[in-house]
C-alpha cells in the first residue's frame, strides 16, 4: 500500500524548547524569532532565523524509519518546518531516482544508498559538518565494533557509507571525508513466535521450517529480504551453505526458491506478509505462530496482551545470526545554499539524542547511543541497550506500558545482538533473476 502521510507543524517557532544543549544557536534563534522587528536583536541570528523560517525540508522514506513524531519535534527544536512523508520501500527508491527534486532528505537503506549514489541523485555529506560524527559507532564508520568485524554479507552500512568526492558515483572502500548517507536507525531482525503455542525456546532459523508448524508459519514477502530469511533457514537446517547470502549466485537462488516452492506446495506457509501491520495481524489473530518478523511488530503483538518472543538467533557453528538493516539520511543533489545549511542542521539534530531515545522505545537503535542515553531513563537504558531486567515498567514511545518490571529484552544487550548480525539487507547483482524466481514461488 502506498500512503503519503504528510505531517505539518506550522507555528514552529517556540521559545527555545527547553533542551539541554547548552546555549545553542537554536536557543538564540528561538529567542530572536520572538523579537523579530525589535532592533535590539543583533544582526546575524535574526537574519538566519528569518531566512530559515520559510524553509521546508521533506524527509521521505518508509514508515518505520521516517516518523511523524520525530519530524514534529525537529520542527519545534529547529525553527523551520520538517515534513515527513511515507512510502513503501519500492515506491521510495523509485521516487528518489525518478523525481529527485521532490525530496530533500532521502531515507536510504545501505543498498538504496548504493543505488542513489550510482544514479547521482544524492550529494556527499561533508563528514566535518556532522558534530557527532566521531561518536557514531564504528559499526558504521569503520565496519567493526569492540574488535568484532561486522560481516559483509549483503550490503553492510559501512560498505555503502563512503564516497571519495562529493559528486562521486562509485562507493569508496575505506574512510573518507564524504559520506553517502548518515545512519540514523537500525536493528537486527529474526523470527517472532508465540511461546504458548510453539512450546519451546527458538534459537535457530530452521525452526521456521519444522513440519510441526505446517500451515502456521509465514515468511516476509519483500523479495530482496524474504529470500535472505529463507536462506538463513535453509542454511540453519544444513541444506546448503551459501557463499554470500546477500549476493547469491543463480544456482543458489534456484536452490532456495525450489525449496520454498516445495514448502509452499506442502502447505507449510499460512501466508506471506509485506507490511508491518500484516505481520502483527497474522500473529495476533492466531493465523501463524512462527514467522520472520520485525522487532516493533513483536512489541505490538505483546502490547495486545498476546505472548510473543523475538528469537535470539546468535551464531552457532558458523550458522544462524540476525539479518541486519540500517536506514540513513542522504542529502539530495538539488540542495544548496540556505536549504543545504538547514539540512545539515537537521542531520545534526537527528543525531543529538531525541530521535535516538524515541526509536529505542520500540526496540531500534541509534548510531550514537551516547546521545540517545540522555533522552532515556536509566530503566529504559538498562532494558533496551544493556539487556538487563527492567527495573520498572517500560513504556512504548507513546507512553503505553509495554513491559513489566523484571522483563528482559529478547536477544540480550545491544552488543550481543549487533555482533550476531550475519548479513545485511541488500540488492543482489542477480536481483532481476531473483525477482523472477521469487515470483515463481508466489505463483506456484
Amino acid at each position, binding site marked *: 500500500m502506498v500512503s503519503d502521510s504528510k505531517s505539518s507543524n506550522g507555528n514552529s517557532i517556540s521559545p527555545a524548547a527547553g533542551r539541554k544543549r547548552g546555549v545553542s544557536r537554536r536557543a538564540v534563534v528561538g529567542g530572536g524569532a520572538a523579537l523579530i522587528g525589535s532592533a535590539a536583536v543583533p544582526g546575524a541570528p535574526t537574519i538566519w532565523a528569518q531566512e530559515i523560517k520559510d524553509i521546508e525540508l521533506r524527509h521521505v522514506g518508509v514508515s518505520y524509519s521516517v516518523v511523524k513524531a520525530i519530524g514534529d519535534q525537529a520542527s519545534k527544536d529547529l525553527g523551520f518546518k520538517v515534513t515527513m512523508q511515507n512510502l513503501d520501500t*519500492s515506491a521510495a527508491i523509485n521516487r528518489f531516482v525518478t523525481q529527485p527534486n521532490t525530496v530533500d532528505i532521502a531515507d536510504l537503506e545501505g543498498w538504496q544508498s548504493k543505488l542513489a549514489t550510482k544514479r547521482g541523485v544524492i550529494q556527499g555529506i561533508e563528514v566535518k559538518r556532522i558534530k557527532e560524527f566521531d561518536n557514531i559507532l564504528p559499526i558504521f564508520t569503520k565496519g567493526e565494533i569492540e574488535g568484532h568485524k561486522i560481516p559483509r554479507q549483503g550490503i553492510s552500512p559501512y560498505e555503502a557509507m563512503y564516497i571519495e568526492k562529493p559528486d562521486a558515483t562509485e562507493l569508496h572502500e575505506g574512510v573518507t571525508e564524504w559520506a553517502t548517507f548518515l545512519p540514523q536507525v537500525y536493528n537486527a531482525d529474526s523470527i517472532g513466535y508465540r511461546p504458548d503455542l510453539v512450546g519451546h525456546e527458538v534459537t535457530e532459523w530452521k525452526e521456521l521450517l519444522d513440519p510441526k508448524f505446517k500451515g502456521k508459519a509465514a515468511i516476509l514477502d519483500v523479495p530482496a529480504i524474504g529470500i535472505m530469511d529463507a536462506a538463513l533457514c535453509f542454511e540453519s537446517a544444513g541444506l546448503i551453505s551459501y557463499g554470500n547470502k546477500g549476493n547469491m549466485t543463480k544456482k543458489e537462488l534456484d536452490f532456495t526458491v525450489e525449496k520454498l516452492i516445495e514448502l509452499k506446495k506442502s502447505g507449510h506457509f499460512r501466508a506471506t506478509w509485506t507490511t508491518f501491520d500484516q505481520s502483527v495481524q497474522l500473529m495476533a489473530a492466531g493465523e501463524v505462530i512462527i514467522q520472520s518478523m520485525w522487532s516493533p511488530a513483536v512489541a505490538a503483538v505483546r502490547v495486545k496482551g498476546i505472548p510473543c518472543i523475538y528469537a535470539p538467533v546468535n551464531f552457532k557453528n558458523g550458522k544462524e545470526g540476525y539479518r541486519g538493516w540500517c536506514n540513513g539520511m542522504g542529502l539530495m543533489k538539488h540542495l544548496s545554499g540556505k536549504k543545504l545549511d538547514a539540512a545539515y542542521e537537521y542531520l545534526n539534530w537527528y543525531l543529538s539524542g531525541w530521535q535516538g531515545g524515541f526509536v529505542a522505545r520500540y526496540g531500534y537503535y541509534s548510531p550514537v547511543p551516547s546521545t540517545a542515553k540522555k533522552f532515556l531513563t536509566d530503566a529504559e537504558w538498562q532494558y533496551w541497550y544493556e539487556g538487563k531486567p527492567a527495573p520498572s515498567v517500560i513504556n512504548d514511545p507513546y507512553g503505553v506500558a509495554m513491559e513489566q518490571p523484571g522483563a528482559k529484552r529478547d536477544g540480550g544487550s545491544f552488543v550481543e545482538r549487533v555482533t550476531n548480525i550475519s548479513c545485511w539487507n541488500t540488492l543482489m547483482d542477480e536481483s*532481476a533473476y531473483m525477482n523472477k524466481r521469487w515470483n515463481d514461488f508466489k505463483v506456484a
Partner: protein
Amino acid sequence: MPQREPWLGWIYVAPLLLVLVPFFVAPILVVIAVSFVESDGFGGIIPTFTLANYVGLFSAKLTLGLYLATFKFTVLTWFFSLVIGFWVAYFLVFHVRNPLLALGLFLLCTVPFWTSNIIRMISWIPLLGKEGLINSALLRLGVIGEPLEFLLFSGFSVVVAYVHQLTIFMIVPIFNAMARIDKRIVEAAVDAGASRLDIMRLIILPLSKTGIALGSIFVVSIVMGDFFVIKVMSGGGSASVVGAFYEDIGVLQYPPAAASAVVLTVVVTVIVALMLRTVDIRREIAR
C-alpha cells in the same frame, strides 16, 4: 445544408484529445520505448535497441503461470459478478413495480461503495480468518471441529473480495440496458404464449447484451490490471501479472517491467475488442 467546416470536427474532439494525448498516449509511448532498451541494473537504461525483454518474457514459464493465475481470478470474478449483477438488475427492473422504489433500491446498491475499496477488502479479513467471525460461529455451533483455513488467504477470499468490489460495475450497465426494454414487448410475448424461459432467452438476454458487455469490460479490465487485492487477500500466496512487474519496478528494472506492461495492455485490448465484437455498443447506446 451548408458544408461543415473541417476544423469544426477537430474542435469537437479537442477536449478528449487534450486529456487522452498527454495522459494516455504519451505515457504509453514512453512505456513502449522503454520496453525496447536495456537496463543497467541500477535504475538506468542503456539506450540500445533490444528485444531481450520480450524474449525473456515469452520464454519464461513464469509468464504463463502468471497469466493463468490472473485469468483464473478474472474469469471467476466475472462469472460471479455477472450472475449476481444480472439478477439484481433484473429484480429491480422487472419485479419492483414502483419506479421510485426501484431507483431507491438501486441507490441502496451503491451504499457500500461510499467507503474505500481498501477498507471493503480489509474488512473481510476479521470475518474470514481462523479466529474470525465465521469460523468462531461455526465452531461454536459444532458444525466444524477445526477452523476452515480456505476461507482466508486463498483463492476463495480473493474472489470474494473482487466480487464484493466489482459487482456494482455489472449492476449499473445491466440495469441501464434493461430499463430501456419496452415492457410491452414482454407483455406481447406473454400474450403470444411464450414461457418465462423463452422471454428470458429471446427478449431480455439479447436486449441486455450491451449492459452485460459493458459490465464485463469494466470487471475484466479492472481485475487484469490489479495486484493489490490478490496480494492481500491471498496472503501473498498468489501472484499476478501486475504484481510481478511491480516487483521489477521495486528493484528499478524498468525495461522488463515496461515490456510486461505492454504485453498486458495488448492482451487486455484484445479481450476488450473481442467483447465489443459481440455487441455494437455505438448502435445500442444510440437506441
